[in-house]
């Protein structure tokens, strides 16, 4: 079982309804699990368009479904498992407005990761992109992240498509890693990480994260530090600072780790799988940024209140 992952470039509502409507009708006809995850303003019209198949199609609001790329991948995996042995045929329309550059980059990476995470699932995904409203840099990436692009009656393989590992690595090249001079610092010197948890929890609470979000950040920071203690090279330490709504926690050591580009992005099947720790860390906070090199290994965790 392979994966069919196609982008749909469309112009305006009627174009959208015609293409996605046909896709979903065909999904029902072939006995697949038909799923529509579309932006709020497309949701009502699409339901209406497919009123005769109302009970055979699951509808979701993209604004709810696409909040956190790592969690969205997990939710889609759960969907695939739930309907198995039926194959998922999904109209999957991400949200592209309201993001800063860093978040947009993660959603683009997400589109690319679909090709790895669902390879072998037998699923078919059609990802609509509104050419009339989306910004150029979003549209530019579509051909890099989708192996096939549908444009009107024209459907052809994308010659710009990059394998997800290369795409992901390229996405991280432009990252900046400034750290404010007034960031608070705690050296990690002993095996016992209780002082680190207290250090992070105190600042997370002061930043008014919810108790659950604070515990998630503490759990994530603890995991990264435990990993540094197990595999890294002293000296090690943690920095915490805030920037607007965001609290940032960075754990660094002087080891020379070059993480493979997809590290911790592909959901593990169980807690015993390699990569469970870093994947969980990505799940627990809003954003994880890794950088490794001769200067050391640094893992930056970001959470908005």
């Amino acid at each position, binding site marked *: 079982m392979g994966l069919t992952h196609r982008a749909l470039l469309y112009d305006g509502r009627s174009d959208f309804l015609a293409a996605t409507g046909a896709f979903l009708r065909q999904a029902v006809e072939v006995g697949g699990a038909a799923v529509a995850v579309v932006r709020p303003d497309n949701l009502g019209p699409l339901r209406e368009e497919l009123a005769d198949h109302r009970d055979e199609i699951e509808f979701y609001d993209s604004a709810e479904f696409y909040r956190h790329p790592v969690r969205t991948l997990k939710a889609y995996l759960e969907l695939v498992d739930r309907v198995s042995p039926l194959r998922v045929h999904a109209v999957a329309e991400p949200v592209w407005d309201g993001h800063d550059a860093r978040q947009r980059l993660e959603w683009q990476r997400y589109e690319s990761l679909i090709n790895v995470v669902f390879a072998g699932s037998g699923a078919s995904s059609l990802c609509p992109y509104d050419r009339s409203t989306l910004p150029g840099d979003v549209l530019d990436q579509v051909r890099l992240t989708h192996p096939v692009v549908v444009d009107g009656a024209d459907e052809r393989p994308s010659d710009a498509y990059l394998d997800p590992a290369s795409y992901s690595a390229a996405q991280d090249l432009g990252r900046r890693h400034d750290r404010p001079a007034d960031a608070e610092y705690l050296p990690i010197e002993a095996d*016992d*990480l209780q002082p680190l*948890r207290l250090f992070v929890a105190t600042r997370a609470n002061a930043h008014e994260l919810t*108790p659950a979000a604070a515990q998630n950040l503490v759990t994530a920071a*603890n995991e990264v530090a*435990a990993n540094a203690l197990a595999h890294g090279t002293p000296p090690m330490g943690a920095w915490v600072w805030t920037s607007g709504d965001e609290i940032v926690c960075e754990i660094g050591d002087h080891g020379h780790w070059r993480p493979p580009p997809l590290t911790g992005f592909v959901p593990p099947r169980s*807690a*015993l799988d390699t990569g*469970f*720790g870093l994947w969980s860390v990505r799940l627990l906070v809003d954003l994880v940024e890794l950088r490794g090199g001769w200067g050391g290994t640094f893992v930056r965790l970001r959470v908005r209140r």
Partner: protein
Amino acid sequence: MHWASGNGSAAYAEPTRTHRDGQGMGTWYDTRYVDDVRPGDHAWLPYSGAEERDHVVAPFVAGALATNEKIVYVTDAPAARLPGMSAFDPAAFAATGQLRVLTRAESCLDAAGGFDPDRLGRTIDREVARGFEAGFRAVRFTTDFTWLLAAGADLTGLLGCEDRLAHAVSPSTVAMAVCQIDRRRCPPDRLVELGATHEVRVEGNPLFDDGTLRIARSFAPRGLRIEGELDRARHAVFAEHLGRLLAGRRGVHLDCGGLGFLDLGGLNLLVRHALALPRGEALILDDLPANVENVIDMVGWNRLPGLVPGRARGARDGGATAWA
């Protein structure tokens, strides 16, 4: 009663440790490990089975014999079969007066075979005074009062007796008492009344306690209670106790009610142990605090094969649950 009072012995000079203040069944009391019970403590032990009872009574008895303290045990069972006696020769300790195993008939029954609280009071007075004169640094008393809870029994005698015990033990620098009660045989309201006559509740010594993580046996249901923070520095000791629990078939429940932090490596550790269980069995995580459960929900129970959520938080209310 006039139990000896005076200067406390040096061994008990430290302030008594109370590891948890708690409200149980409507009554406030300190909860103490059995090794932390001190002269002046009138403690009760509500238990849910012989295993739990012996887990507390055995160190109470053995602790006396190992440290020049006298133990007075009112029971009709033979001395050699009492909890805590496996490493000791009863005859040798009986000969010195350090071990006194008294039958009910010779310590607390009247001529008609009924419970006589006054007689029990006099018996204890006498044993404590003799123990003090013989130079023992403390006198420990214990008995199981469950036999007084027969259906429809009037508890007035027992409650009055407990009251007397409390007034006598509390000011003493020599005497301490542990009153055993099978909570399964006691209606919840009676259990509340009985508990209220004690200021200390005693529980088994922890298997491990470093101030950050505490691991203890739990008995209803059977398993381990984990309190505090389970992290990398404590994985090895936790794995050791969990492995021993599972290998000995001593329960599969983990009481997580007091768990403040569980790291991701801890989840991995739990799964590894759960998968070693016989087919069809699981490790059951009871009473998960919301913030810990949130982390587990986030990664998904489906990634934690062999672990299942158990009793929901707040379902536990002491005696009522065990008695029902």
